[in-house]
């Protein structure tokens, strides 16, 4: 039982606690760099290295994403540094863990700025984009984001650039693939998280427009562990194809249950571009079987090159990173993963813009992103940073076309591009199986 204490005795814990709290706040507040101020963009020329920050989840449910993006950052910067850097500066990459939660992302970003503003930001997934993009804008930092949220389709954020398709058009693309393959009976199976919920509505609309029949629509509760009834509902509806995205263990459980209930066979499945990732492949292949995945699974993806000079440069850069990634399956999956390809392109675009502007100050080089990305008439097409640097030195105008294909920024800095169909081979490598044309997408209302 708590006995009474003298007055001075009871002061001590309070004093200690106050000291601890103050120390805590001070420690939290002290960044490593003394260059404070309200963050006005990239570093001054007295800094020798420029930082690219990977603002994404490194922990939590989506914790596989941050490390994936970091790989492409390392690959890109290594190639840039090897080609001489920009204006005498080299690049390095920094991880900023948002923990997959907007309330945690905000202090993470503030802490990042407190210890030295980065020159460029990549990552920002659906988990945190809505809360951190305004912060990037306030700090005048260019960001290349991975989020497909519709919020960014029609709202202007000045420093926001997106090279991945919005979920809206992706869902149309999935339906277009189904249409192309001649399927008529469509089943939907999406998880109940942010990333997946945004596909369902547009998909239903597109199915109707395409004259196909929606035979099942199951939402998978990501916190549940078995989905047999949902799987059975899908299988009994006898669909021609299942459109799906669910991350984490859900997809693996769900698809293996589909397999069990369908007499050991998996019906054709079309996934979103988020399913083209090494972590997803590892988890699902273990549950369903690599062979099954190979024969029955397709995914939509933004067109990416799989050969040619851009791809060569890209794969060389990525190969250099091979030993530094954890065991997540076939490394070659990275070569078409959206998180790798498009962020690599974004970094190159940014670096080339800086070269073209002869400045590392954001206000100077940012306009060049559009010029180099969309290209001006008569521009020389370049496929890697090294190539572009050389062309700029020779006084030419350039257009950068990387492994992600040509860019076409709209008024909201979104570049959607065209879609292709990807399939997995039995060892996890990704192959392109076809394309979706512009007209097909437009017919569906895009």
């Amino acid at each position, binding site marked *: 039982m708590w006995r009474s204490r003298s007055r001075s005795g009871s002061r001590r814990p309070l004093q200690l606690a106050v000291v601890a709290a103050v120390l805590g706040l001070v420690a939290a507040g002290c960044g490593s760099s003394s260059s404070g101020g309200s963050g006005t963009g990239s570093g001054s020329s007295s800094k020798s290295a420029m930082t690219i920050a990977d603002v994404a989840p490194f*922990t*939590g449910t989506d*914790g*596989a994403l941050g490390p994936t993006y970091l790989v492409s950052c390392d690959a890109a910067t290594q190639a840039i540094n090897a080609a001489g850097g920009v204006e005498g500066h080299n690049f390095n990459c920094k991880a900023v863990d948002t923990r997959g939660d907007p309330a945690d992302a905000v202090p993470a970003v503030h802490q990042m700025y407190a210890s030295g503003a980065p020159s460029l930001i990549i990552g920002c997934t659906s988990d945190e984009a809505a809360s951190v993009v305004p912060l990037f804008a306030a700090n005048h930092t260019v960001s290349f984001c991975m989020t497909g949220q519709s919020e960014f389709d029609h709202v202007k954020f000045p420093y926001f650039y997106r090279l991945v398709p919005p979920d809206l058009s992706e869902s149309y693309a999935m339906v277009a693939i189904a249409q192309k393959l001649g399927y008529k009976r469509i089943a939907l199976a999406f998880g*109940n998280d942010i990333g997946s919920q945004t596909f369902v509505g547009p998909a239903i609309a597109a199915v109707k427009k395409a004259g196909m029949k929606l035979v*099942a*629509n*199951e*939402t*998978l*509760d990501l*916190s*549940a*562990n*078995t*989905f*047999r*009834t*949902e799987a*059975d*509902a899908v299988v*009994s*509806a006898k669909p021609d194809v299942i459109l799906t995205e669910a991350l*984490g*263990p859900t997809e*693996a*459980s769900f698809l*293996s*249950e589909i397999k*069990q*209930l369908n*007499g*050991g066979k998996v019906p054709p499945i079309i996934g979103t571009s988020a399913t083209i990732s090494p*972590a997803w492949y590892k*988890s699902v292949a*273990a*549950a369903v079987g690599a062979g099954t995945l190979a024969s029955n699974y397709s995914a939509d993806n933004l067109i990416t090159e799989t050969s040619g000079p851009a791809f060569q440069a890209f794969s060389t850069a990525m190969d250099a990173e091979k030993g530094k990634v954890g065991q997540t399956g076939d490394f070659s999956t990275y070569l078409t993963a959206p998180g790798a390809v498009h962020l690599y392109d974004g970094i190159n675009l940014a670096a080339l813009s800086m070269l073209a502007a002869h400045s590392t100050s954001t206000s100077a080089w940012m306009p060049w992103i559009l010029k180099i990305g969309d290209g001006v008439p008569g521009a020389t097409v370049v496929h890697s940073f090294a190539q572009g640097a050389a062309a700029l030195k020779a006084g030419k105008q350039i257009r950068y076309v990387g492994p992600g294909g040509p860019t076409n920024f709209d008024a909201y800095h979104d570049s959607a591009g065209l879609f292709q169909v990807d399939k997995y081979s039995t060892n996890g490598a990704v192959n392109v199986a076809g394309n979706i044309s512009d007209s097909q997408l437009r017919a569906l209302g895009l």
Partner: protein
Amino acid sequence: MLIVGSVFVASIGFGVVSAAVLALAAVGFTLQFAVTNVLNLAYGAVMIVSAYAAYELNIHGVNIWIATLGAIAAGALLSVFLNNVVYTPFQRRGSSPIALVIVSLGMTLILEFGTQALAGANNVSYNMSQGATVSAGSIQLTVVQLVIVGLSLVVMVLVHALIRYSKLGKAMRATAANRNLARNCGIRTGRVVMLTWLISGALCGLAGATFAMNSGTFGATSTDVFLVLILAAVFLGGPGQPYGAMLGALIIGVTTEVSASFIVSDYKDVIAFVILLAMLAVRPTGLLGTPMEAGRT
């Protein structure tokens, strides 16, 4: 989506499998409550630790059914540890039941995230085949699922025999009803309690392994929502009532799966939540409990 008959019938089959796993878990949980009067919310965490124990053996080449013995052992030992080292000392110094709930939540954090720290945040699966699918009308179950159901039935019969006919069972019932009186009658209640936690811990371990088998893949926090299903089953049948737990597990297991077949599937676990809250509000002693005045336990 509205589904016709066959999915409905099939969902009953799946519900039975869910109920089988749930029964193993709920009976263990309720036995712990019966003899120690503690709501051991760390139960789900012990389940998943046991599942990982089996996984460690499994990926080093041990057959999954043998590895399950490892899960059982892990569950038993960890449960006894939990009771002797954590709960009993707090109870001895007169902590309120709510303090014990908070303690059990603290233990859940330590166990689940300790496991995640050691094993990583990725989800894992057992190295096993689910076996062929067996059909009977609209009901389709894999061999593994049938084995789980069979295993659960056998264990329920054993538990019944233990409680009803064995000396230990009688001692357990006496200790659960009135520990002081039991001690005065010469029953070594300390030992009875330890044995109860050992047995219920074994059930917990077995439940963890079968849960993992049934789910396909699992991670350190996979049992968070499952714990609510366990609580629903326990409270439906009556806390401290093993037969109630079995009944509750059957009802909860089947209704959650069946509800997925005709209500929107993403709410299927909400049914269990609602049942639990309704039981707490209306009849906290459960269906099989005696109607005492609420609060006087």
